[in-house]
């Protein structure tokens, strides 16, 4: 591993080591670029991960204070935890479940296909599926996505058996164990899935792809990566219209300044927008890259909801991969259902501690406990659907509340759009129908968890007046500032986002290396 000087202005600084930042760091160092990777969290490993929900959450989750507003239920249930993301080397790829789906062509052209939806700030992406296909292929190869390349699908667990049988009875056609970035067999130096059932707690067998033990060690092996854990960036500095470096707080609480030739921000949408806003200066009084006024706006989180059902006989849903299977029939373009966009149904399971916390936050009494009593006979699914971007769904700085470094915390405002509500209603019914078809006794409609998919706060646009970054994730306003995470998403699409985040990072690395060689950055 390399060590570069704080005043070395020839390095690329990447902020955040998750799906976007960890991938970009590897790709750039493989091309010979010197990278300083600043990560707010500590470094863990498969050996230090724990099969225990709350202790794992304390170990890996982003727990810095945030505030919420808006009519979404998360603001009531989890007022200071709007999002479920991680603060650790590898970012949220330590917690993620691994579902890896390509965005469909029509979803990249949401405005064209969905039309003008009142209250929604829909726009077409400046790129389409054809632009991304070669990079999707590289991402799937890198991550070992099942049912791509030579990777077999995973064997389904009990939770999947219930979903599959119900889905077939209802008449759904597209149900399988899906596309997962989880090794179904030994591959790339990592073992096959042992069906531990703790995918959300960091995979102890290393079967699940995480930048922590794939991209980052590979980048370190090039001798071009200086990874600095426990280094939380507070501002990005500029001079003469260009980024010059960053200020961060290190493990001992000291402020450090790192010079940079370029800066790529991959801090997961909420923190990415917060950083740009918090870097306001005389030169950029509204925050960096914000001449459009779009930084922090169009915050998307996917529809999300869950359906759990209890049965006469045992299921033991917690055994095996958390996202063990998927129904894809509803992620289609079909406004006749009463909404635009589509949704996926994916199995999910929670251990007893999380089930109690998330089943119906705030609830008590015998209706609630009847579900807990049936815990081992319960099957569950999660709904991921496209939510509408809205100008007013937004990350702003809350100057009344400060974090441990004295910086204003981000406030996350979200209101469900009528389209979101109609889709959630439809999805609840569809999920219930699947479970009813195989004899469900009771069905619970579970409200959204804190957001695991955080998107859109620095949206990609053709026109600099309408968005923050161009089709390569480069800020319209600042030529050596890049956004490298899900903030770039112009719209959310119905698929889990990480494969696309990784794909965009690989594509961006080509662009950055080329621009560097031509002295454009």
């Amino acid at each position: 591993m390399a060590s570069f000087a704080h005043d070395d202005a020839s390095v690329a600084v990447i902020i955040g080591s998750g799906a976007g930042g960890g991938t970009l760091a590897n790709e750039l160092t493989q091309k010979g670029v010197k990278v300083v990777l600043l990560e707010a969290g500590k470094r863990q490993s498969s050996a230090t991960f724990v099969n225990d929900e709350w202790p794992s959450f304390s170990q890996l989750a982003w727990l810095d204070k945030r505030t919420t507003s808006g009519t979404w239920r998360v603001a009531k249930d989890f007022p200071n935890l709007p999002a479920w993301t991680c603060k650790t080397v590898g970012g949220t790829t330590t917690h993620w479940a691994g579902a890896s789906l390509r965005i469909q062509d029509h979803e990249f052209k949401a405005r064209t296909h969905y039309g003008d939806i009142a209250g929604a700030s829909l726009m077409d992406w400046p790129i389409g599926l054809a632009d991304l296909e070669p990079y999707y292929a590289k991402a799937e190869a890198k991550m070992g996505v099942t049912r791509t390349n030579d990777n077999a699908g995973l064997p389904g667990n009990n939770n999947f058996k219930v979903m599959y049988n119900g889905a077939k009875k209802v008449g759904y056609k597209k149900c399988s164990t899906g596309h997962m970035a989880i090794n179904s067999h030994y591959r790339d130096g990592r073992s096959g899935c042992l069906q531990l059932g703790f995918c959300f707690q960091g995979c102890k067998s290393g079967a699940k792809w995480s930048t922590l033990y794939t991209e980052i060690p590979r980048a370190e092996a090039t001798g071009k990566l200086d990874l600095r854990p426990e280094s939380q960036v507070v501002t990005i500095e500029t001079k003469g219209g260009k980024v010059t470096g960053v200020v961060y707080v290190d493990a001992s609480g000291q402020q450090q300044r790192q010079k940079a030739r370029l800066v790529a921000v991959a801090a997961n949408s909420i923190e990415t927008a917060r950083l740009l806003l918090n870097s306001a200066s005389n030169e950029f009084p509204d925050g960096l890259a914000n001449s459009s006024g779009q930084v922090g706006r169009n915050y998307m989180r996917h529809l999300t909801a869950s359906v759990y059902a209890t049965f006469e006989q045992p299921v033991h849903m917690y055994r095996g991969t958390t996202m063990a299977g998927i129904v894809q029939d509803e992620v289609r373009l079909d406004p006749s259902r009463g909404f635009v966009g589509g949704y996926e149904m994916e199995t999910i399971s929670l251990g007893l501690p999380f089930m109690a916390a998330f089943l119906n936050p705030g609830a008590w009494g015998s209706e609630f406990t009847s579900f807990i009593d049936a815990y081992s006979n319960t099957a569950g699914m999660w709904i991921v659907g496209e939510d509408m971007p809205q100008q007013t769904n937004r990350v702003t700085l809350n100057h009344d509340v400060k974090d441990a470094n004295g910086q204003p915390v981000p406030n996350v405002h979200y209101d469900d759009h009528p389209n979101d509500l109609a889709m959630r209603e439809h999805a609840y019914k569809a999920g219930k129908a699947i479970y009813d078809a195989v004899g469900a006794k009771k069905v619970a409609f579970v409200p959204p968890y804190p957001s695991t998919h955080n998107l859109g706060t620095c949206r990609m646009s053709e026109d600099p007046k309408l968005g923050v970054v161009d089709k390569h994730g480069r800020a319209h306003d600042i030529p050596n500032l890049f956004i490298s995470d899900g903030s770039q998403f112009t719209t959310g699409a119905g698929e889990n986002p990480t494969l696309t985040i990784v794909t965009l990072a690989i594509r961006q690395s080509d662009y950055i290396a080329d621009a560097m060689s031509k002295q454009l950055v």
Partner: protein
Amino acid sequence: MADLPLAEPTLTRSTLLRGTGALIGTIAAGSILATLAPSRVWALELTSLSQPDGETILSFAQVLYPHATLPTAVYAFVVRDLDKAAAKDPDLAAKVHAGCGSLDAAANGSFAKASPAAQLAAAKSIEGAPFFATVRGTCITALYDNPLAYAHFGYEGASWPRGGYLHHGFNDLTWLPNPPADASPTLGSL
């Protein structure tokens, strides 16, 4: 199971007097938990809550999260956690004491000794109070995140020590047909 309030009933009068009270009970002989606990008799020594308040909280937890066959020993975890927190936080201690008083008042006497219907009505009457939210939140972590609850509700917890569920029933469900191999491939070599 170091943090269980379960212990041999060795508390003597003098040790009891050092605390502020104690809750004592027995796990039914037939319960699967009887095999997990070091002894069927359990005792929880209180360090900050009074004896009557401890008993009120114990009953309140049972009203909030009623499980017909969950041993009282598990509900005692709620009292343990609040007792520990109150020992460190005088404001919380005062809130808990006042809250127990409001439950007694709502039950026209002793909440712990009131009828189930009266207890439920009393609980509902204070639903918006911060005390209610504190106890309810404590219940969620205290009741459902411990080895006795895992055993009672049928959650097997950490699987890494056993090498995962791969050879321990991840796909042992037999009351529905197995999906075909194209949807759910059988496992090749790892």
